[in-house]
C-alpha cells in the first residue's frame, strides 16, 4: 500500500567541524508505510534522526513533509508539521508530573489516556511524578504522548530497547494498526526480528550515506549486513604482532550468569591471563552495565564474578582496583586529571599505590614513567597539561599508564571512539603489549573491524545475553556484524 508521500528527506549533509557525519542521506515514507532505518555504529543514524526531527539543522538537503518544505528548526516545529519523534532516551521531564508533561507539548489528555491503556499500562495517575516511574513505563508514556497528538509520521528510535517482551508485542501491534489507518512510521532499530515482523522497507545508512533501500522479505538480513559493511576503509594492520602472553589455563576473571537491571539478563565468560578478549555488541545491549559492574560501580543482581578463582564481591570501585581490575572508561575525561601533566597522569596509579613514605623508589618510578612516555609517542610540546593533548593522545595516556605501572586485568571500554586511524594503530600494539606482559584485557569497541586486529577471542552480546564466543583470528566483519545483530545459528553458539 503506497499512498501519498508523507516524508521526503533528500541529500541531507551535516558536518561537525572536520567530521562529516552525513554526506548524502535520504529517506522517504509514504502513507501507511513502516520504514526501518538501519546502519552500523557510526553510520550517522542518530545525526540523521536529529535532523529529520528538527533537533539539528542540516548543512544542505531538504526535508519535505507532505510535499511542503519543512523549515524544521526545533522539535516543536517538527511536531507541529506532523512528524513526532519518540527518542531513544525518554524526553519526559523528571520533576514534573504526567499532566504537566502533557501540557508542555500541548497533548490532549483523553487520547493519551486511551493510548496508555491500549499499550498495556494500568494504574497511571496524571499526578504521578515522572521521576518516580520505571523506565519501561516512561517509554510507553513517550509513545502514547506521541500517538495522542495524531502524527502523520511517527519516528521510533530504538523504542523497544528498554521494554519487556509483552510490551514490545503491544507496541508492534499498535504500530501495525496505525499504519493500516494511514500513518507513516520510521522505525530505527538494531533488531532484525522486529524489523522483519513490522516493516515494509528498510533504508540502510553507511558512512553518512543512504546506500540502499530493501524490501523486507526472507533473506533480507544478509543483504542488509552486506550493505551496512560495504567497502570499508582497510586498516591493513594484520601485521600487528600477536603473540599470546603466558596464557594460563586458570581464568583470571570469571563472569558467571551475571544479570544487571535493566538491560543485562545473562552474561557468562572467562577471561584468561595474557589474552585480549573482545566484546562485540551494538549500542545499548548491556555492555555499559557489564563493564561498570565488573569495575565495582554496582553489584550484579544475579550471578557472580570471580577473580583468580575467588568470588569477588565488589562494593566499590576501590574493591575492584584492589583486586587488580582496572577500568578505563569510554569517556576519557573520567580517567584523566585534565589540568595535570602527562607525567603525573601516568604516575598516578603509582602514587595511589604507595602506602608508606619510607623506601620510595622515586628514581625507579621516574625511569618507568619516562619509558612509558617515550613508548607512547606523544607530542611532547603539549605535555604540560593533558587537556591540551588530542583525544587520541589522551587515550594513549589512559592505557599507557598501565604499561608503566603493570596491571593484572584491564577493562577497556571503547578506547578508540572518535580517534583518527593513525592513532588507533598505535593503540592496538599498546593493548597487545599489555597482554604479552601477562595482563588480561577485556576490550569493548564500537568498531567491529578492530576485533580481529586487537583481540584473541570475542564474546558477542545481544540483548543482554552472550549469544556467541568467536575466535577473533578468523572472524571477518560480516560474521561479527551478523553475530552482533543476534543472527547466530543456534547450533553455532558455543
Amino acid at each position, binding site marked *: 500500500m503506497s499512498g501519498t508521500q508523507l516524508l521526503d528527506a533528500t541529500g541531507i549533509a551535516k558536518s561537525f567541524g572536520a567530521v562529516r557525519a552525513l554526506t548524502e542521506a535520504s529517506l522517504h515514507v509514504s502513507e501507511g508505510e513502516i520504514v526501518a532505518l538501519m546502519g552500523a555504529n557510526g553510520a550517522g543514524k542518530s545525526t540523521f534522526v536529529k535532523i529529520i526531527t528538527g533537533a539539528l539543522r542540516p548543512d544542505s538537503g531538504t526535508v519535505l513533509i507532505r510535499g511542503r518544505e519543512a523549515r524544521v528548526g*526545533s522539535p516543536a516545529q517538527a511536531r507541529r508539521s506532523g512528524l513526532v519523534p519518540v527518542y531513544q532516551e525518554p*524526553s*519526559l521531564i523528571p520533576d514534573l508530573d504526567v499532566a504537566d508533561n502533557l*501540557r*508542555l*507539548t500541548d497533548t490532549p489528555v483523553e487520547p493519551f489516556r486511551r493510548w496508555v491503556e491500549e499499550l498495556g499500562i494500568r494504574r497511571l495517575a496524571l*499526578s504521578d511524578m515522572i521521576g518516580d516511574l520505571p523506565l519501561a513505563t516512561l517509554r510507553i508514556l513517550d509513545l502514547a504522548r506521541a500517538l495522542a497528538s495524531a502524527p502523520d509520521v511517527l519516528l521510533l528510535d530504538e523504542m523497544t530497547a528498554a521494554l519487556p517482551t509483552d510490551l514490545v508485542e503491544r507496541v508492534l501491534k499498535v504500530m501495525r494498526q496505525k499504519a493500516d489507518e494511514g500513518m507513516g512510521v520510521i522505525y530505527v532499530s538494531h533488531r532484525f526480528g522486529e524489523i522483519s515482523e513490522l516493516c515494509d522497507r528498510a533504508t540502510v545508512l553507511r558512512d553518512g550515506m543512504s546506500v540502499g533501500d530493501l524490501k523486507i522479505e526472507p533473506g533480507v538480513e544478509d543483504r542488509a549486513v552486506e550493505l551496512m559493511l560495504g567497502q570499508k576503509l582497510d586498516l591493513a594492520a594484520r601485521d600487528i604482532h600477536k603473540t599470546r602472553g603466558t596464557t594460563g589455563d586458570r581464568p583470571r576473571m570469571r563472569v558467571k550468569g551475571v544479570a544487571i537491571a535493566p538491560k543485562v539478563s545473562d552474561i557468562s565468560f572467562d577471561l584468561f591471563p595474557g589474552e585480549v578478549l573482545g566484546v562485540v555488541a551494538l549500542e545499548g545491549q548491556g555492555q555499559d552495565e557489564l563493564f561498570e559492574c565488573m569495575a565495582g560501580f554496582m553489584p550484579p543482581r544475579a550471578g557472580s564474578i570471580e577473580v583468580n578463582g575467588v568470588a569477588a564481591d565488589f562494593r566499590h570501585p576501590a574493591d575492584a582496583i584492589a583486586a587488580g581490575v582496572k577500568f578505563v572508561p569510554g569517556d576519557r575525561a573520567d580517567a584523566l586529571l585534565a589540568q595535570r601533566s602527562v607525567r603525573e597522569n601516568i604516575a598516578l596509579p603509582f602514587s595511589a599505590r604507595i602506602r608508606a613514605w619510607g623506601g620510595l623508589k622515586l628514581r625507579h618510578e621516574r625511569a618507568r614513567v619516562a619509558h612509558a612516555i617515550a613508548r607512547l609517542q606523544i607530542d611532547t610540546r603539549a605535555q604540560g597539561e593533558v587537556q591540551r593533548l588530542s583525544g587520541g593522545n589522551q587515550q594513549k595516556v589512559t592505557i599507557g599508564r598501565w604499561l608503566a605501572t603493570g596491571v593484572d586485568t584491564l577493562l577497556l571500554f571503547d578506547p578508540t571512539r572518535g580517534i583518527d586511524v593513525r592513532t588507533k594503530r598505535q593503540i592496538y600494539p599498546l593493548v597487545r603489549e599489555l597482554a604479552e606482559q601477562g595482563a588480561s584485557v577485556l576490550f569493548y569497541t564500537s568498531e567491529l573491524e578492530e576485533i580481529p586486529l586487537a583481540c584473541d577471542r570475542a564474546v558477542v552480546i545481544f540483548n543482554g545475553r552472550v549469544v556467541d564466543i568467536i575466535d577473533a583470528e578468523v572472524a571477518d566483519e560480516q560474521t561479527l556484524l551478523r553475530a552482533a545483530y543476534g543472527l547466530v545459528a543456534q547450533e553455532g553458539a558455543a
Partner: protein
Amino acid sequence: MSGIIRKNAWVAGLLALLVVLLVATRMIQPGFGVSGLESIARAALPFVFATTGMAVVVIVGGIDLSVASMMAVCAVTAAVLMERMAGVPAILIVLALGLAMGVINGGLIVATRVPDIVVTLAMLFVWEGVALLILESPGGSTADWLQKSIRGSFLIPGLPNALVIATVCIAVVWLPIRRARLGIAIYATGSDERAAFRSGVAVGRTRIAAYGICGLFSAFGGLSLAALTGIGEPVPGPYLLASVAAVVLGGVVLGGGRGGLLGPIIAVFILRIVRTILTLLAVDPNVTTIIEGTIMVGVVMLGTAATMRGART
C-alpha cells in the same frame, strides 16, 4: 501523588519549624506580639524579594549572583526619580529597569554560553558600578506614602503590611506565570534541559524569562529597601548569600527543577527569627553566624534524609 506530598511535606516542615521558633521567641520575650512580628516582617521584606527572584533562577537551573547589586541599582534609581516625579510612575520605571537588567543577565548567559555563575558574577560588579554612577553616596528620597505603607498593619488588620505587600507582589507576578506554559517550561528546563528541548520548550527564551523575573523581583526588593530607609543606598546589602541560603533551606534544589517559592519565603522568616532569638538571648554575634550555618546544614540534611526515605517506601 507521592510527589505532591513530598513537595508539600518540606513546606509543612518549614512551617512547623517557623511556629516552634515563634513560640520560642514568645517564651524568651513575653512581650513579643503583633508589633514584634511587624518589625520582623518589615526587616525581612528585601530578603523576601531577593529570595523569590533567586528561587526562580535556581529552579530554571541557574543562579544569579548579581541580585543584591540589581537591588542597589533599583533602590538608588527609585530614590533619585522620586525626588523629581510622582511615586507611581517612578515605581513603574524601576520595575521595568529591574526586568531589563534581568533580561540582560539571561540574554548574556544564553547568547555567550558562559556559565551562569560566571556571567552573573561579572554582572555583580557591573550593576554595582551602575548603582554608584547613579548615586555616588546615599541620598535621594522616597515618596512618603510608600514609606508609610510598608509600616504598621492597617491594610489587613492583624497582618503586617510588609507581609501583605510581599504576598500581593509575588502572587501577581508568579501565579499567572506558574499556571501558564512558561511556568512549566521553567521547571522543565531546570529539570532536564535536553528533554525540555525535545518536548518543544524554547529553552533559551525560558532561561531569559526566568532571569527577567528575577530582575523584576530584585526591583521590588530595591523599592522596598528605598521605602524602608527613605533614601537610596548604592552599596549592595547582604542579600546575595542570604537569598541563596533561604532558597536552599526552602527546599529548592540547586541545579534546578525542584521546589517552589513558598518554601524559600518561609525560610527567610525562619532565618530572620533565628537571628532575633539569638539577639534576644544576647548571643555573641560571631557565634550567631555559626549557629545559622549549622541550622541550614542540619535542616537540609534532615529534609533530604526524610524525603529519600519517603521515596523508597
